[in-house]
């Protein structure tokens, strides 16, 4: 895990650098050289005096390559990084924004100054009439350094500049490795927090290659960072989530009755639970296809021979066994089945469930009586035996209003009395695949 302990903060530098390259139409061997030349040109640009760092939402601009010229008088090379958090609030308007003071991420963007050129030359127009392939892309630079809050801004900027240069070299390597003829993927950086490192690790991936295609690269990374082979650390969905970023995707989507114009009120609860589980696998990067619809789920069961062809389009319920089968067929995910003969016995499964959430972390589908639910978590005390279940109830038929959903308890913690004490329950516990 990345530890942002007291006194540490993250400086993040971002921005888009324009990459422009002219490739020869006929001579393919020169293409790699041309690409390298364009990257070398960009590396020298980030060393130029015209590079400017700007602190987002503030009036602070720094010229890190020009003896640290700054636009605010009270900031210079020796300013401590911790003071920058104050600068971010003060944008001249005097209004203090409601800022999460615990959030130790300082966002900087780089810009290019086009005024005050160091070696001005007379304006000219240069024209070359040669057939060529013009490659144009925006490199999404994203560099991160972890600094102590008492570290000087000057030295952190130097580190950011080095990181920028290094990232360009890594982008060059990725581009050369994955470009095919004139098809050039955009190299995109991702940051990962690893158990074996206190700092964030930045890896550049070609944007047009999916996770599957990068498996061998991930194996190399697992070796390099001495990480176990059974669970993913370097998939795109494993990327570190910065505290100040909005969540791009929720942990899993809440699937419930009447969603997507599917009227499954009264019969579709297990389907919805299955959809919730699928969305979890998708968010975690294990599944790239979309969450299956009711029909697709039914078709999958027909395909494995579990149900007759007439099943598709019907309003028949499914149970945890069917959920296990669909997960296996559509996602390649195996699941464990737990059985309790009476609802009152569920608390005794506390240890098993707690273990499941600790090791696998996948949502659990529970079906019994005439209802199915999704268990997202469990709070279990080994000493007292007290247990509470975090339930996502697919029987909700309302609109997508989070307030109602949480207030009315459609997603919430429930005690053991929630279950039908006499009914028997089957639980489907999907196992996280052992893959990277």
């Amino acid at each position: 895990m990345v530890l942002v302990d007291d006194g540490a903060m993250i400086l993040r530098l971002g921005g888009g650098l324009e990459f422009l390259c002219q490739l020869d139409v006929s001579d393919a061997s020169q293409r790699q050289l041309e690409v390298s030349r364009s990257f070398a040109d960009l590396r020298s640009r980030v060393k130029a005096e015209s590079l400017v760092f700007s602190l987002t939402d503030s009036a602070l601009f720094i010229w890190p390559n020009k003896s640290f010229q700054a636009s605010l008088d009270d900031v210079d090379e020796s300013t401590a990084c911790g003071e920058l958090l104050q600068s971010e609030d003060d944008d001249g308007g005097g209004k203090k924004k409601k800022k999460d003071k615990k959030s130790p991420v300082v966002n900087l963007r780089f810009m290019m100054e086009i005024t005050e050129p160091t070696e001005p030359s007379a304006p000219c127009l240069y024209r070359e009439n040669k057939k060529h392939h013009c490659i144009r892309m925006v490199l999404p630079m994203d560099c991160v350094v972890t600094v102590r809050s008492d570290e000087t801004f000057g030295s952190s900027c130097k580190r950011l500049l080095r990181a920028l240069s290094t990232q360009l070299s890594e982008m060059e390597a990725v581009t050369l490795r994955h470009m095919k003829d004139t098809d050039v993927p955009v190299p995109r950086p991702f940051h990962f927090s690893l158990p074996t490192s206190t700092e964030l690790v930045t890896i550049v991936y070609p944007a047009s290659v999916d996770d599957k295609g990068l498996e061998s690269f991930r194996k190399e990374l697992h070796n390099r960072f001495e990480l176990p082979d059974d669970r993913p650390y370097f998939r795109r969905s494993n990327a570190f989530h910065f505290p100040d970023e909005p969540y791009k995707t929720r942990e899993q989507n809440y699937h419930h009755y009447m969603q997507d114009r599917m009227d499954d009120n009264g019969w579709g609860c297990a389907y919805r639970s299955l959809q919730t589980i699928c969305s979890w696998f998708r968010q975690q990067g294990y599944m790239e296809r979309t969450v299956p619809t009711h029909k697709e789920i039914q078709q999958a069961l027909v395909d494995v021979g579990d149900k007759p062809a007439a099943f598709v389009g019907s309003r028949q319920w499914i149970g945890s066994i069917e959920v296990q089968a669909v997960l296996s067929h559509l996602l390649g995910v195996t699941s464990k089945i737990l059985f309790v003969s009476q609802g009152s016995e569920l608390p005794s499964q506390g240890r098993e469930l707690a273990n499941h959430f600790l090791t696998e972390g996948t949502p659990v589908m529970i079906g019994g009586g005439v209802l199915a639910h999704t268990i997202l978590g469990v709070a279990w005390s080994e000493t007292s035996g007290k247990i509470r279940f975090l339930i996502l109830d697919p029987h909700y038929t309302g609109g997508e209003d989070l307030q109602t959903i949480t207030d009315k308890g459609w997603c919430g913690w429930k005690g053991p009395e929630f279950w039908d004490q006499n009914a028997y329950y089957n639980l489907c516990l999907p196992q996280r695949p052992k893959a990277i």
Partner: protein
Amino acid sequence: MGRTYVADDTVQKYLSSLHTAGGVCITGLLIGQLSLQRDYVLLSTKTPHRDSDGPGEGHSSSGLLDDADLEWATEHAKQVSQMLPGGMSVLGVFLIVPPELSKEAPSTLRRLVFAIEKHISKGRLWDLTEEDITERVTLQICSKTKKALCRSFDIKDPKSSAKPADWKYQPVSSSSWPLVTCTVALDLQISLPLKSLDDICIKEGLRSWANRIKAAVCLINGKLVADESELVPGQKKNPKMGKQKFQVQVLLQTLEDMGSSAVTQCCRSFISIRGAVHCRAYLQPNKPRAKHAVEAIRKDLMNTVSCRVNMLMEDLLMNEFNDQGVMTGVQPLPHRVFVALPASDFRLCDYVFPDESIADVAERLHEMLDSRVTEESIDSSLEPTHAKTPMSSRTADPIQHSRASKQHIEAPKDIKKSNMQQYYTGDFYIPLLIYIYIYIYIYINRTVVI
């Protein structure tokens, strides 16, 4: 509530010095700065003489201005607007009419002011926004009584009618007008795809560069200043502060994400525009705000680049027309020189090709702005210069070339006229000399015979 136009005393002097002969009208431009409170008219210049083969000048049976006159006047306005630094623009037109033609004057003025605005805004890299003032002034002066009638039109609304406006003369001290400058390094890369047209691609390339300029962050004297804050706080307390100078720094924002693959295009040609250009803008002295300074410099930057590129393109097109082939390699863009008009601190500018001289600039200024400047007052040091290019690399005819940037926009009759002059020079005098020689020969022989 009409607009107020404050005109400098020099404008009054100039307008009263213009005399019309007979039933002839004089058109001309009013130049200055628009601002929210009032507009300042700093300079006026009459439309230069258009050589026409017809009997009269500027007066035809179909109204005060025929189409050729109108085209001439609008072209003059465009040429003049390219000579203005940031913050200054062509505010409107004046028309000196004899009393018998004064009835047609308002409609003529209306035609003129709309046509000029349309022509000036062609090829501009920026569009008028809500913030811009769209009123333009028309001044109708009776040649006999010297009485002036001032009206304004909203050029944003083609159906707008004339609104009365105030016109008053007042000395406008140019020394108190803040000056904003910067030197910008250009770096435009334009690819020309197969099956594309040169000028469309170049226009596109300039437009996307202009969009980046519009989105850029501008610092004033090294600091980020809020749009609405005053540039010179408390100026009224200290009127003798001298000229306030502001240096602008332009910072380009980084580009937005493009997706997962690079854009690949098969192209036939590549154009790169590089070099340093000097930008300059003047701000009216009444509480100018930071946003005015930034807007004025931005517009000046966009204008100077588009103007120069267009001038070069037209010049190259002329050369291609004369069988020089499509130009490749390095082509110098015209160089910007600045000159202060007599009795004023404001500097106007002009563009000089490498093989033109300062004398050419002085001559152009005289023609366009009806103003005599000395060659010494022309400052060409604000931008880095090219080495002089040899004549042979340009068109064969030096006379034709030194006016190249202007010649193609003059009425075609002028080109024909200069050709005719050549005809006179070459082929007229030689036969004459031969005749004289023969005559002398006969005379001498006759004498001898006798």
